[in-house]
């Protein structure tokens, strides 16, 4: 697979939704330690809604799929994380306008725009103990790889490492901010979701061959 067709992209969103659904309770537990315990429920519900909404599109383009995901996440998820995760897809969707199949180059642009959007929207930098700690290294790894397959697996690995790195941090954004030192020792749920998303894509790609 060197480029991704719209139907494949839709399939990929499905794979992400399934992964988040199966990790829902674990994500809730992570969020219970640092926030209000709903991250798994709301993110998996949002992706499930995205899958449904995409299924209702008639011959969608890659851009349509990404935009539909953005809207489902924003509106179904709500809260700060809905806006931030939604912005990730929303900013990426613009880069897909008019594309037939998505090349590695296109996907780089999508991920970079998404990352920029997330950072701008949430005003978070690496080290703030947010999803940015997983997303930024993942995007970097993706862009540094030679081709799509190794790009996904490198991104998944980097995202997981980034997520793990949040364990030792104090939060400077989101609800966990008010915990101060008490946040140390817990992995950020949003960063973990990012790792799960990239891992889900990588596994999906492997299965697709």
């Amino acid at each position, binding site marked *: 697979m060197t480029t991704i067709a719209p139907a494949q992209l839709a399939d990929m969103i499905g794979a992400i939704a399934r992964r988040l659904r199966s990790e829902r309770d674990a994500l*809730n537990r992570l969020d*219970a330690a640092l926030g*209000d*315990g*709903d991250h798994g*429920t*709301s993110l998996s519900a949002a992706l499930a809604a995205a899958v449904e909404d995409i299924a209702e599109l008639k011959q969608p383009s890659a851009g349509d799929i990404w935009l539909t995901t953005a*809207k489902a996440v*924003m*509106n*179904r*998820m*709500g*809260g*700060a*994380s*809905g*806006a*931030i995760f*939604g*912005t990730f897809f929303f900013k990426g969707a613009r880069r897909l306008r008019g594309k037939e199949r998505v090349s590695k180059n296109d996907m780089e642009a999508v991920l970079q725009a998404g990352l920029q959007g997330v950072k701008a*929207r*949430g005003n978070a930098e690496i080290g703030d103990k947010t999803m940015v700690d997983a997303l930024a290294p993942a995007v970097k790894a993706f862009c540094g790889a030679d081709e799509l397959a190794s790009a996904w697996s490198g991104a998944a690995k980097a995202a997981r490492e980034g997520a793990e790195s949040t364990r030792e941090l104090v939060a400077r*954004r*989101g*609800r966990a901010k*008010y*915990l*101060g030192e*008490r946040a140390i020792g817990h992995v950020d749920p949003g960063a973990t979701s990012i790792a799960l998303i990239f891992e889900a894509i990588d596994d999906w790609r492997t299965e697709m061959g």
Partner: protein
Amino acid sequence: MSARKQKLINEPDDIVDEMLAGFCAAYRDIVRLEGERLVLRAEPKAPGKVGLVMGGGSGHEPAMLGWVGEGLLDVNVVGEVFSAPGPAPILQGIRAADRGAGVLLCVSHHEGDRLNAELALEFCEMEGTENVDMVILYDDISSAPKGSESERRGTAGLFFVWKMLGAYCEGEVDLASAKALAEKVRDNTRSLAMSLSSCASPASGEVMFEMAEGEMEIGMGLHGEVGRGRQKALPADETIDLMLPPILDDLPFQAGDEALVLLNNSGSLTLMELFILHRRVEEKLREADVSVYKSWIGAYATTLEAAGFAISLCRVDDQLKALWDAPANGAYMKQL
């Protein structure tokens, strides 16, 4: 004490929709339900007046449902428990509130509320919808130090903005001056909360934060966000003596000032306790030579059934007093 996990609900997923159905049926002379969880005035305000929209998570009832009505808000956009609604319903709310003189989106300062409001405004821009603005409201002195007021959280003290801004926007005013009035009230308001107990989410059935019997936390946010840490619970008067001075110092309120007082019940404190607390607030304000224009005591912005309260003070001048006294008719905010 343990939090009450047993709730009188049906399916957790249906909480918000069933709540809105039950609320709007009860108060159908004041509100009506529309679209994706919009609570609107039963009778829209006259054309040519600035519309007021407020979005927010649920779990704070009667806020904000109870504040839709004449002399108050035009639209409340309701989210899941403790979670801001997304941009699409906010956008619908803005459209519904538009009476041709612009719409002010009021945001209680929390990350989720602010970000979704920003998104909604960006969508307005993309669509070419004009004359929409937002104002960020905050009052909780425990969430950021003096000098960083704009990083503070919005809590019970927004009460004063809702009431006065609502009254103001019944008049012939434009969007810019509505925003300025909201900022004026905000900048004259300070709050500090405390809690004796936690609460349990009806959505997840889980306790929202942990608290032991005999403990209290000063500075807790409207969703149980931590404040200044735990300490041994104190008697009523000592609690007020601990909470009031930092509020007075922060503005600062000065001898000769006149203020409105709100004692907001977080949920399951009794009015008996709140009246006892109010007695001391009045006593201390008298000592500080701050005169009380009017007091309100009750559950206005709750944190489910947490047992705690907030003190909010709003410094008032003649303009604000007149706006305060103007009539209002929301389901849970009535001014004759």
